[in-house]
């Protein structure tokens, strides 16, 4: 599949094989093909600061679909801009945050949520870390218990009547 371009600024859908791509094994490097910092523009912003604040917060939770790992709030891709505008339209129309999120999910699926919803298929994701922590504590607990039982030897069984007699005999001998 050859790249389907949005605009010169957005990312191709697939990087075709053998195409020279720029890149670096680095931390925190944003989209090689997008120009940075030109995301939210003054002309998109809502007049009411409280509503604008809601829109920004919502935007941070919504994934820009064409730029992969950016939120629509960080991306300057055209589709991200459209979604920012539409999110603001919904807020302007009186939607709650949940309604706006549902609006976008209805069209793009759960994929668009950077914070995956808590449901059957994400149970492992959400509860896994805490289960791991509890599991690890259980292992550590077992470790301490094993060591304690390993060090505290069981008391030796009491001497039998025969042994007692031989011991007494030995003691008498040495007492001479």
């Amino acid at each position, binding site marked *: 599949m050859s790249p389907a371009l949005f605009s010169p600024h957005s990312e191709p859908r697939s*990087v075709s*094989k053998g*195409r*020279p*791509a*720029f*890149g*670096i*094994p*680095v*931390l*925190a*490097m*944003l*989209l*090689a*093909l997008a*120009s*940075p*910092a*030109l*995301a*939210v*523009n*003054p*002309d998109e*912003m809502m007049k009411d600061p409280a509503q604008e604040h809601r829109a920004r917060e919502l935007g*941070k*939770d919504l*994934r820009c679909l064409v*730029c*992969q*790992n*950016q*939120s629509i709030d*960080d991306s300057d891709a055209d589709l991200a801009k459209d979604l920012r505008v539409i999110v603001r339209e919904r807020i302007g129309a009186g939607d709650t945050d949940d309604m706006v999120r549902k609006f976008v999910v209805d069209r793009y*699926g*759960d*994929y*668009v*949520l*950077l*914070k*995956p919803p808590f449901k059957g*298929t*994400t149970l*492992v*994701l*959400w509860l*896994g*870390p805490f289960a*791991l*922590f509890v599991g*690890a*504590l259980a292992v*550590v607990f077992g470790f*301490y218990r094993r*060591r304690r039982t*390993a*060090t505290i030897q069981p008391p030796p069984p009491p001497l039998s009547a025969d042994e007692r007699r031989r011991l007494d005999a030995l003691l008498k001998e040495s007492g001479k």
Partner: protein
Amino acid sequence: MIAEIGHFALVLALCVAVVQAVIPLVGAKRGMGSWMAVAGPASALQFLLIAIAFGALTNAYVTSDFSVMNVAQNSHTDKPMLYKVAGVWSNHEGSLLLWITILALFGYAVTLFGRNLPPGLKSRALAVQAMISVGFLLFILLTSNPFARLEPPPVNGNGLNPMLQDPGLAFHPPFLYLGYVGFSMAFSFAIAALLEGRVDAAWARWVRPWTLAAWVFLTCGIVLGSWWAYYTLGWGGWWYWDPVENASFMPWLAGTALLHSTVVVEKRDALKSWTILLAIVAFGFSLLGTFLVRSGVLTSVHAFATDPARGVFILMLLVLAVGGSFILYAMRAPAMKMGGLFAPVSREGALLLNNVLMATGAATVLLGTLYPLIADALNLGKVSVGPPFFNAVFLPLMAPMVMVMAVAPMMAWKRGDLAGVLDRLKFVAAAALAAGVLVWFLQGGSAGPWWTGAGFALATWLSLGTLIDLAERIRLFQAPAEALGRAIRLPRSAWGMVLAHFGVAVFIVGLTASAAWTTEHIQSQKLGETVMVGGFGVTLKSVEDVPGPNYTASRATFDISRDGESVGVMQPEKRTYRMPPRPTTTAAIRSGMTGDLYVVIGDADPKGGYVTRLYFNPCIPWLWAGGALLVIGGLVSLADRRHRVGAPARAAERRVAA
């Protein structure tokens, strides 16, 4: 011609690595000294050959030899010299060569500094090191040859992505790789110990400084990367929980755990099999990161040329190295002796708790990073796991960690007195609570996020707790006159711990404040117009075009005033590079104790004026200061006499003499 020499040197290095991987191992197994002795010279030769190859590629970049495809694709004659050199590791092939060079360097370091090591352990470790070399040399030679030629050579190159033409980024990858690859030392010694079936204090004493060195490099690399992201990306963010960042964070977490568990091995001869596992996992995470970044299985904003053939190759490497190690571990580790005893409430117990939390943290990052892949592979649908998830799950796991960090250093070895320690910390607890409440009121209660108070309380708890511990160690309150002398005589490793723990507290302040109270003003600003940001008046004075070496910048000049008085100018730029033709922004930042004024210039507005983005990012310098303290703490600890490489044998001699 020079490129061919480089290529040939890599082929020779592969042959040497194969010899180094086999002969010493057989020698160690059969007790043949001469075979074991092959490891040393082989590691030196291998390093020499790989250094020649690295030099050859660097030469091609410096001389702009565009007949080498890699240079043609990533360089340009106009580029400043620093970025010509940094261009070597700006791409897949070159960065792989850097990785291999560093690996060979560490291998050679074992030979250089390890004269006192038991020959069996040393030759086995060097053989394992060589096995990793063989894998990566095969990888580069078979799938990613950096010396491939281009016929006919182009007149000029494609240039380097302008975002990478930055000093922060020039030094970021070498540090990161010194960290990643540095963990190969602990790994090789762990495998060698499994092969020998023996782990003791001498092993830990050898592994600890190398782990610490790798950890220092990795910390440095991560901080440099975050700092770079902060000032180039133009909106003040510095961490994105992107898969590639996570790929560097997971080995850091595992490495931090390893750092702490080797202490227990050294001191108490306990937690041995766990430490071995951590050593494997820390380097395993480094390899996993390589796989994730270069195979294209995950989507990341970091664009590397991905190629399925490479993905398959690295996966094979990963399976052989990590899978093989885990199998060896399952076979050999259960036979390891239990070692010394300690109570759950003790320094060792606290270090173990640290390990549990760190390991859980690393596993959480791993789960979050891989979950999109897992869900997709199991047909559970496409999901995204982004910053909101990590912030919601990872950070709560780290809170108990910070609480333990203040308590642990005060705990006695073997059997501690928790009530006693908590009693000593009661004023610290009160201060932490007060700080939290104070911050809560200062931000106007629920006008800010609920967790700011918690963040500041934790930072206060940890910083004061660490200082109290230091004061007690030098008996500052009991015998103030002698305190300075005691402070000087305090082991450097103790100082290192204090500095690093204090650094974490400083970092928490930066993290909390910048996440909670950043103010942002995005507007179209006319010339002469003033906008108030974080108490500063920011006035746009002029915007003019300024030529750069390989770009044209439109540079804005802002007058900054405080309480009506001018305190300076700030000049952010928007650059358009000629090759490749791409825009970048360079923010202007004015740093202070309370935070950064951060100014970005955008496009011209058709109605006159310019789009400007003005931020006040509170306490951001605290992040870098915290990171720097971590690095300095690591370095100070590394300078401890007991950590000096080669010390184990000398210590042993002393013990014999006594």
